[in-house]
């Protein structure tokens, strides 16, 4: 038994790969097929009754997620209608100034954070596995946890408007206005939305891992559906764009709760730091919203054109290029802040440059339509509307990217018009196109052609009636975010037209919502692949089955349903991989990143309460501090940690009943993976990239103050204790080494020594935490931004070290109770990876607190 000596995580696949045509043509006996289907049905059964809510399957969670995001959109839309009513006439007193300010703040915040980004994640969770012929996302319970966090946080944030307690400083929350704001509105924004951002990042991590590791055997990166490429790009953007905002939120809430003056100019702070951090998030955010919609168009257009997409590689390169460029444009939101001409020129040029990759993507779609035989369908009508609206918004975008022109129209209704043109054209219309296109995929019923056309023409004309005049309204001098306006500026009639248009849009959405929600039990089920698409999602069986794909196919083409004609039949017969669930477990295949060679059978998690509990307690940890109730918040945070540990302990990286299993077609795959082979390791790696970005944003903050403020640190300022900082850094470095050594020792079979490392590690970590806390204890963070920044770095490190300490103890417990052995050591790999990042964070923090200020 050679196998028992090598770590299970290092086992290699055995047998035949790739399969031959003869193998694929072999018949499957009927009784085998029936037995396999019974097993699969049992393994993937959706819980019934009230247990339904414990479901974690992507088809359920994705559906809840989509409907919840849609509901939040409707709420935000109602707020827009109220605002339009108030603006119907000059000096209208329908809605008070204070209430109006809450409405537009919440309208923008909800549309961005509760609709646009979650909608991408919701739709992707719902359909990405199907595009990839996978049975589920790699971490179903993480999806469920993310969803419940989103629901709790979203209801908390949007519900505040009903209690007249909503944030009212604009969705951008500029300090000092938002830091000085009375009431809890700003805290709701900061804590509630940070909570949701964490959930967004969790979903992004899962989607990235899904696109990289859960593709079907043979689907190399250059043949995967364009949608998966966009998921990768957008997931990566979320990973680098949200953390600067989270870092900003962190500083902001510290200022609001504890009066640490990060943005207060009278104590060395600077409101401009928030603007930079916010827009480093805010501009990529626009493309995070826009690219997934392009991705939907990239799936619809080839079907409509009856031919493969033209310029696949160009589209991929352009999407990646747009993603990169979008991080270099943020200053165009700050053209009127008095930055030097050279900066304005650079960011104007960069902002125009992003037109080119965007243009390539749009022209590639048009070229596909030209080269194909177009059959217009309802989804395509929405795509056409999207193009008409988006190109108008893009062209006004070209105008406002020219800095001097922006000096005139910045913060006017011209911008309101511009941004709604880009978001309706670049998000709403393509998403609705996607709903019409994919509805038969996930409900197995068609939406109404007639209602769909009504909805289209109402929303399309209503949109233009509402927003086209706003360009002129802005040019005639109406600023944004005003609750009313005086007579005599020539904008009264324009505002009335806009209000009429807004209600026509609302009527269109009412028709659309009715079409979605109306009962369809009397309606026949669709035929398979009603649009004649070429990608794997249309291989799903009718009537619906919960297992996703009957067997996971071997895919070698971009449009397998067009190019591999025998495939669907073979899938149905269970001729491909994982046609069975003998152990009653939910399984999917993990493949290699580039060429999708099968690596492992991944056991994915099933229904659970624990994710709901964990989300509830996490919510408490974020929501209680809004009301300055810190003890219950700490209790909730502790319970959340307990829940998450329980969830991980009981359902992840458990030693399997057998190390290898038949995956079908003569291929034997390992059932356990550790280190870079494992999806969990990838998830930690990707998460920590985001976390490191947030930390880098804090470090950027220190240097920003240093460059923008001659007195940073203030002359004669007291510094943190050098000795204690050095001690802390040494302790963290030693804890890091102990963790890494424990991994090596454990794998070498020296379990006792490994446990010693896992005892020393937490002790050293605790010592490091104590030393770093005491090193800054003499500084008063409320006096000046310099000590406040040192405290903020300390808090960040201590919070992460606490997590690192819990992880070390988790591994120690695993070792003691047989979950972690020399052969099954995935947990220790993941924890060591976390500690690589934590160790670096500790070293940099030590330098930033102990060394750098003394040299500034």
């Amino acid at each position, binding site marked *: 038994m050679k196998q028992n000596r090598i770590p299970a995580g290092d086992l290699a696949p055995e047998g035949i790969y790739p399969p031959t045509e003869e193998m694929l043509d072999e018949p499957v006996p009927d009784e085998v097929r029936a037995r396999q289907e019974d097993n699969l049905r049992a393994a993937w059964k959706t819980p019934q009754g009230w247990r339904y809510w414990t479901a974690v399957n992507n088809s359920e969670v994705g559906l809840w997620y989509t409907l919840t995001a849609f509901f939040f959109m409707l709420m935000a839309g109602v707020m827009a209608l109220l605002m339009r009513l108030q603006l119907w006439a000059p000096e209208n007193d329908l809605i008070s100034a204070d209430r109006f300010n809450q409405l537009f703040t919440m309208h923008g915040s909800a549309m961005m954070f509760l609709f646009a980004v979650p909608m991408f994640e919701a739709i992707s969770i719902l359909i990405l596995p199907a595009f990839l012929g996978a049975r589920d996302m790699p971490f179903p319970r993480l999806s469920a946890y993310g969803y419940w966090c989103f629901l709790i946080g979203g209801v908390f944030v949007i519900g505040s408007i009903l209690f007249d307690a909503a944030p009212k400083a604009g969705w951008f929350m500029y300090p000092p206005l938002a830091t000085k704001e009375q009431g809890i509105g700003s805290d709701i924004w900061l804590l509630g939305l940070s909570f949701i951002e964490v959930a967004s990042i969790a979903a992004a991590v899962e989607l990235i891992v899904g696109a990289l590791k859960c593709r079907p055997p043979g689907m190399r990166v250059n043949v995967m559906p364009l949608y998966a490429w966009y998921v990768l790009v957008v997931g990566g953007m979320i990973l680098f764009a949200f953390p600067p905002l989270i870092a900003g939120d962190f500083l902001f809430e510290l200022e609001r709760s504890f009066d640490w003056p990060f943005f207060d100019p009278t104590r060395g702070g600077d409101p401009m730091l928030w603007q930079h951090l916010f827009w480093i998030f805010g501009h990529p955010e626009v493309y995070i919203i826009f690219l997934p919609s392009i991705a939907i168009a990239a799936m619809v257009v080839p079907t409509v054109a009856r031919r493969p997409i033209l310029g696949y590689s*160009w589209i991929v390169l352009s999407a990646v290029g747009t993603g990169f460029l979008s991080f270099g444009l943020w200053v165009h939101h700050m053209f009127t802040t008095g930055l030097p001409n050279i900066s304005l020129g650079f960011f104007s040029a960069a902002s125009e440059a992003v037109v*080119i990759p965007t243009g390539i993507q749009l022209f590639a779609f048009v*070229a596909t339509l030209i080269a194909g035989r177009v059959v217009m369908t309802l989804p395509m009508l929405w795509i056409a509307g999207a193009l008409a609206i988006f190109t108008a918004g893009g062209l006004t975008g070209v105008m406002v990217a020219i800095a001097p022109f922006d000096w*005139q129209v*910045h913060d006017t209704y011209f911008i309101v018009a511009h941004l709604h043109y880009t978001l309706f054209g670049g998000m709403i219309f393509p998403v609705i196109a996607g709903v019409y296109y994919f509805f038969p995929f996930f409900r197995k019923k068609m939406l109404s052609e007639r209602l769909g056309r009504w909805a289209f023409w109402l929303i399309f004309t209503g949109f233009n009636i509402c927003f086209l005049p706003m360009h002129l309204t802005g040019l005639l001098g109406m600023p944004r975010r005003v609750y009313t306006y005086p007579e005599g*500026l*020539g904008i009264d009639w324009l505002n009335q037209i806009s209000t009429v248009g807004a209600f026509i849009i609302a009527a269109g959405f009412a028709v659309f919502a009715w079409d979605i929600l109306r009962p369809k039990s009397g309606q026949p089920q669709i035929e398979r692949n009603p649009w004649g698409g070429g990608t794997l999602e249309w291989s799903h069986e009718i009537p619906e089955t919960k297992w996703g794909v009957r067997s996971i196919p071997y895919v070698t083409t971009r449009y397998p349903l067009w190019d591999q004609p025998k495939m669907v039949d073979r899938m149905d017969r269970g001729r491909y991989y994982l046609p069975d669930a003998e152990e009653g477990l939910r399984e999917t295949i993990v493949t290699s990143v580039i060429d999708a060679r099968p690596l492992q059978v991944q056991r994915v998690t099933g229904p659970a309460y624990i994710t709901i509990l964990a989300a509830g307690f996490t919510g408490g940890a974020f929501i209680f501090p809004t009301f300055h109730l810190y003890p219950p918040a700490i209790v909730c945070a502790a319970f959340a940690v307990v829940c998450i540990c329980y969830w991980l302990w009981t359902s992840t990286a458990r030693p399997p009943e057998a190390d290898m299993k038949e995956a079908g077609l003569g291929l034997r795959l390992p059932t356990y993976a550790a280190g870079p082979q494992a999806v969990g390791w990838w998830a930690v790696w990707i998460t920590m990239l985001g976390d490191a970005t947030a930390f880098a944003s804090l470090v950027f903050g220190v240097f920003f103050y240093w460059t923008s403020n001659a007195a940073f640190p203030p002359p004669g300022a007291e510094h943190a204790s050098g000795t204690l900082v050095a001690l802390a850094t040494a302790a963290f470095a030693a804890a890091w080494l102990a963790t890494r050594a424990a991994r090596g020792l454990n794998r070498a079979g020296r379990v006792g020594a490994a446990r010693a490392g896992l005892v020393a590690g937490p002790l050293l970590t605790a010592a490091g935490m104590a030393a770093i806390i005491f090193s800054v204890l003499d500084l008063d963070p409320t006096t000046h931004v310099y000590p406040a920044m040192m405290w903020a770095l300390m808090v960040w490190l201590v919070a992460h070290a606490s997590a690192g300490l819990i992880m070390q103890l988790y591994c120690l417990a695993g070792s003691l109770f047989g979950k972690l052995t020399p052969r099954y050591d995935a947990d220790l790999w993941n924890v060591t990876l976390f500690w690589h990042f934590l160790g670096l964070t500790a070293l940099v923090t030590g330098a930033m607190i102990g060394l750098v200020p003394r040299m500034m």
Partner: protein
Amino acid sequence: MTASLRAETTGPRPRAPRRAAARLWPLAALALLAGCEGRQSVLVPAGEDSRVLGDLFWVMLVGAVLLWIGMNGLFYWATRRSPAAHSQYLANWLVILGGILFPTVTLGALLVYGLSIMPDLRATGDGPVIRVTGEQWWWRVEYERADGSTVTTANEIRLPAGVRSTFLLDSKEVIHSFWVPSLGGKMDMFPGRVTEMTLGPERPGVYRGQCAEFCGESHAWMAFEAEVMEPAAFEAWLEAEAAEARPPEGALAERGRALFFAQGCGGCHAVRGTPAVGQVGPDLTHVGSRHSLAAGRLGTSVEDFAKWVANPGAWKPGAEMPAYAHLTDDQLGAIATYLEGLE
């Protein structure tokens, strides 16, 4: 950037108004159609900056309309007019030409044109230097004179035509943005730092400016009047503005003055030449001669003053000034008459 850097400025040097004033704008028709006075319009320029930016707008608008028609026309053709399959070779070239070459050339040209005007619009001023401080929700305005003295006023800007005036912008509490669309672009005002901009008005007249950065509850009512004057008239006005307040005329105004002090108004407001030296609210020395009251909120009739003093929060939600609703109509009328007489 501090005012001392501008010490060499020796007051306004008159210069002939440029061609803009008389020019017929394509927009004039549109503006008339809109029944608008164009007092706050980007499209009815009254200065060098707004004129140059207006030209830029019209050029870009024409280009944008043509491109929109081209792109959507192509789409319409491909999906409706001629949905049959066309040459893939042609389609490939379309991506190269339409997606790469064409935008590179046009955007390059637009950047050269658009960015080349920027240095002129940020040229050093040769006219008066005016310090404007944003408050919630009004404007503190200080003219720096050649002799080093300053003239303080509020909620109104007066500028000589034909020279570039310099604005040193600051803020007391939150971020505001200073914007007179008829004269040119906007510039944000930050607490704790001074931003600078210059404007070159050309056509005399009264225009409306407004805060463009959301600044709290009554952001909508933070406006001001900007009057562009002939240089000589501007000099005369500044001289008059520098003078102390004129004494009240008539018994009612006298009574109003007494009430003004009895109610403690001088604790917040300054009326130069009287014991009222408060610096919290706007300077009222010549408030009666302004175009508007309370930062563009009301007119300057006696009734307007009375309405405002009785209940500022009704006109400007969240305003710091307390309501004087306990005063009788007679008393309010007296105070209003006094203030209206401060010309």
